[in-house]
């Protein structure tokens, strides 16, 4: 039966979800704040509801989003990623209002969102974990607990906000005196950012690989994995490049990681799509990090190598269907790489280029190329949202073929106006270590030459300036 589904997000992920809704024959409802009133997701959706002037505050406002759903008579909400996606109160509000939340239950989100509870669940299920503490006790007592942990496992250690995530609320501590200093600061920050001042400690795994497993489960508990992704190439704990599957050659190890992920999801009573994140150290020991209870930015690479539409599956599961495929049906083929093309200046610490106008946008195409974008010619990059313009995902039968294709796509991509991460990525695809598939989370720090490039201004844009001038003046002032 045709249903109405509200997409509680913006940007490329809103478009991604709208596409899946429309492919299933349902009606897609978009929401938007004022700065997005010309955005592409409104044009593509079947309906759109304005929820306020924002910026950001209305996309984060549970009441307004629920109100929009009711107003448009939506029966389900897909939260995308970011904003309210991992807010258990939002999932709870949906449940209370009888709206289907496309994702796990509010209880699962609560448990997995609390890093300490999550660690407890995983510990009970024998999932390998980086040594860490429970929430530190308040006051001096907690500081004392922390100092003992530091002495036992050595430095550096990570001080983490229990309610943090997505790279936020994490700080590295290199010695005991720093630990004393930083605990109160971290608590104050966590309180401000997440309204929860709980913090805990974890031993640091130095220069690990970041490998994650896409899992998907129905309400009957049928849980399958869709293989691994490597997201080691990051800046300030934010992912830039994602690869599926992991380039680790030891297939047994990867199988073991995937099976552990399924076990972890089951232990958490997980339903719908989720991601189990692991760190892998130099000796190929792997440790559970966390479960993300949302669709990930990088889900595209998994879709490319499995052929399974994750968002479509998410919607079907949420609407009451069971998994239509078993683990044996999931076959991994080839390689996929996703690059986040952001309006940022990599050479200036990835400073966002908000406010600039995209005067030319020409994207590559062809075999094995997928674009999940939000940008178009004439698009002005909002200063109030993130700087992601388009995700370029390429697929190839072999790793080399995939890298070659990626390079071709980056070379043919034309974005004029803002600086983008493209020239930086072009250096990256030409780097020997990348070409060998050899990278960990220290990659950017150890490959600083990636930042050495000249901003190339499009020659035809310059020339067309002169042609426009000749046309306007009726002659070339250099030809008189």
């Amino acid at each position, binding site marked *: 039966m045709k249903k109405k589904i509200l997409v509680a997000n913006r940007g490329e992920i809103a478009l991604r979800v709208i596409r899946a809704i429309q492919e299933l024959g349902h009606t897609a409802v978009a929401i938007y704040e004022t700065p997005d009133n010309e955005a592409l997701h409104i044009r593509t959706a079947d309906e759109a509801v304005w929820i306020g002037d924002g910026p950001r505050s209305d996309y984060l406002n549970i009441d307004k989003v629920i109100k929009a759903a009711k107003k448009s008579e939506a029966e389900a909400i897909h939260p995308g990623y970011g904003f309210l996606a991992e807010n258990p109160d939002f999932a709870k509000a949906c449940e209370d209002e009888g709206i289907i939340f496309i994702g796990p239950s509010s209880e699962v989100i609560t448990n997995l969102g609390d890093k300490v509870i999550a660690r407890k669940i995983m510990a009970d299920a024998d999932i390998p974990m980086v040594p860490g503490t429970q929430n530190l006790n308040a006051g001096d007592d907690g500081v004392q607990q922390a100092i003992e942990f530091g002495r036992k496992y050595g430095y550096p250690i990570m001080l983490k906000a229990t309610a943090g995530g997505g790279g936020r609320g994490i700080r590295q501590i290199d010695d005991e005196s720093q630990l004393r200093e930083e605990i109160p600061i971290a608590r104050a920050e966590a309180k401000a950012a997440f309204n929860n001042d709980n913090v805990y400690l974890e031993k640091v795994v130095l220069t690990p690989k970041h490998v994650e497993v896409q899992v998907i489960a129905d309400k009957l508990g049928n849980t399958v994995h869709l293989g691994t992704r490597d997201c080691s190439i990051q800046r300030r704990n934010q992912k830039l490049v994602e690869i599926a599957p992991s380039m680790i050659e030891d297939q047994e190890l990867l199988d073991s990681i995937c099976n552990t992920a399924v076990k972890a999801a089951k232990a958490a009573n997980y339903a719908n799509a989720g991601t189990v994140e692991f760190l892998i150290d130099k000796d190929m020991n792997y440790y559970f990090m966390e479960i993300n209870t949302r669709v990930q930015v990088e889900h595209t690479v998994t879709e490319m190598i499995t052929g399974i539409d994750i968002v479509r599956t998410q919607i079907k599961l949420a609407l009451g269907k069971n998994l239509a495929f078993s683990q044996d049906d999931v076959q991994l083929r080839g390689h996929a790489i996703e690059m986040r093309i952001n309006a940022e200046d990599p050479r200036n610490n990835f400073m966002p280029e908000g406010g600039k106008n995209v005067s*030319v946008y*020409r994207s590559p195409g062809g075999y094995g190329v997928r674009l999940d974008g939000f940008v178009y010619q004439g698009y002005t990059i909002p200063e109030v949202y993130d700087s992601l313009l388009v995700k370029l995902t390429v697929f190839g039968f072999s790793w080399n073929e995939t890298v070659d294709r990626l390079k071709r796509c980056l070379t043919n991509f034309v974005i004029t106006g803002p600086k983008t991460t493209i020239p930086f990525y072009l250096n990256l695809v030409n780097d020997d270590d990348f070409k060998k598939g050899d990278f960990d989370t220290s990659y950017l720090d150890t490959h600083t030459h990636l930042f050495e490039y000249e901003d190339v201004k499009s020659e*035809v844009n*310059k*020339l067309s300036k002169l042609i426009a001038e000749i*046309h306007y003046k*009726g002659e070339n002032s250099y030809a008189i």
Partner: protein
Amino acid sequence: MEHIIKQGMGIKEVQDKLRSADGYFVTNTARDLSQSDFKNRILLHTDLLAAKSRENAGFFSLEITGGASVHVDILRKQVDPFLKLKLLREKMPNTMFQTLCRGVNLFGYRPYPPNVIRMTVSEFAKYVDVWRVFDFMNHIPNMQAVFEEVQKAGKILEPSICFSTGPEHTDEFYVKKVDEILDVTGDEILLCIKNHGGLGTPKRIGDLVDAIKQKHPDLIIHYHGHNTDGNDIGRITAAVLNGATIVDAADHAFTGYYGPPPILSVIQTLKEYDQKAEGIDEKAIIETSEVLRHERDHYEYFESQFKGFAPTVQIHKLPGGAMGSSFEQAVKGEFLDKMPEILHEELPKVQIELGNWWSVTPGSQILWTTAVSNVQGEERYGNPSGDLKNLLLGKYGPFPFYKPADWIYEKVFGSDWQKILEEEGGVEAIEDMDIDKERQTLTERLGYGPTNQQLVTYLQHPNDAVDFFKFEEKFGHVYVLPPSIFLRRGGFKLGETLKFRDHNGKEHVIEIGPKQKSEEDEWNVYLNVDHEQRVFLFQEEAQQAGGVAPAEQLSKKEIAELAKNGDIRASFSGNVCEISVEEDQEVADGDRLIVLEAMKMQTPVTCELSGMVERIFVKVGQAVQPGDKLLSIITGEE
């Protein structure tokens, strides 16, 4: 066909090949043709189209740079003179490239310091094989620094004797000049007879070549002439029959009136005398013109205002390279009606009065400007240019035959001219320049460190070079645009499709869209660039040439009147090249205030009253239009 003379050969090998050949060789003077008949505007795009067949034609050399072309490259054609040579070299690996160098004046109009000469020659020598060097006074010391650098760089040195006519211009005189050159250079040279005006008869040229050959039988003579009177093939024929080894000519599809004559006609004529054009593939020569023929229409605007040969050149002696621009100035300055008087009466008179030396850059400009100002002004020599003063002071070298009469000195310098001549006269030794400091200045002006080649270009023409480099940053490598685009007049047609290949070899297509005025009085120009629509904004006032507000419409007389009251304005369009005073400075009648430069000539603006400089409105390097305020002077009376 195998090239007899190949790029990369040393002078000795070249001399051997030339001496052992039975016939003669041909230089394709594409640059001189462009300068003489197309105001130097033949674009690199066109030369690149012709490159393949020119390479196959088997020339001794292709004269493709030097003279005024280096300046026009950056000033008008907007192409890097070094990049131009590099790109042509890629398509023409075997053909020697030739330049024309004005001795100490290099490719500019005034003498350069020795270290600038050294750097310029060594940078250009990376692409240029044959160096034709001349001095308009035939004063050997003015060429010596370049001679040395060219020989040091292992390139082919071709010193010139400039040729003219008149009772002083005897074979004896020229043979002595050749002796002077050989004393300085030794015999590892080629000698050019530089007949830039196309003067004299075939017999005269034949006699001169013969006289030189009698004295120096082994000396290889390269005859260069212009076809201004329509008779250069006669002179070339006489030169070859009397022993010249190399001659200059040009592609027939582009030959006009004031440049060199058609190569093919030269070859056909000399065949009748059993003279063979060595290494030449006639088919390739024809092919070149078939390619060029289709391009000529786009250059029509730059062809001479007066069509037809000018045998009167034997009277006025203007070099081919200055003919087109003279008529252009006459049209722009609205004195075309006075041209017969200027060319046939005043110019010959000035020539004789000033010493009957050689009318070629920068001397030809001095003669021309003086003649124009003599006819236009109230009295002859009443408004002398700075360069005329320098000439009279002997800054360009000694007069070869006789000095101008005292009355001219008195007219130009006033009653104490003898004292001035004594104190300021003579060639000045030019000190080395602080090149590092210049590099620093250029770095500051550009915002990045320049290459050596950029620095060399800057040292020739500082302001124009900076403007060009900034142009290139903004508009890219525009040499890729064909003349049908770059030289288009009257704008493009709506819906017209332009196709070209950019600097990196990528093909582009631009479709011309509408231009519309917005509510804010801005013009929107729509283009479809590679199938993407683009809008370009133009402000209404930017439609004035160069974006400069229109100058007040003042007549020359009104400007002169204002000057008497202390409101000093430009009387012609040019660039401010010197500000000789400061604000609040006391000035007296006759003091130099500002020096303006136009058409290669520097002209001082002098004070006509006594007072104090109140305000200076312009900066060095600024372009001014007639009527633009330069500075104001207040007198005590007010």
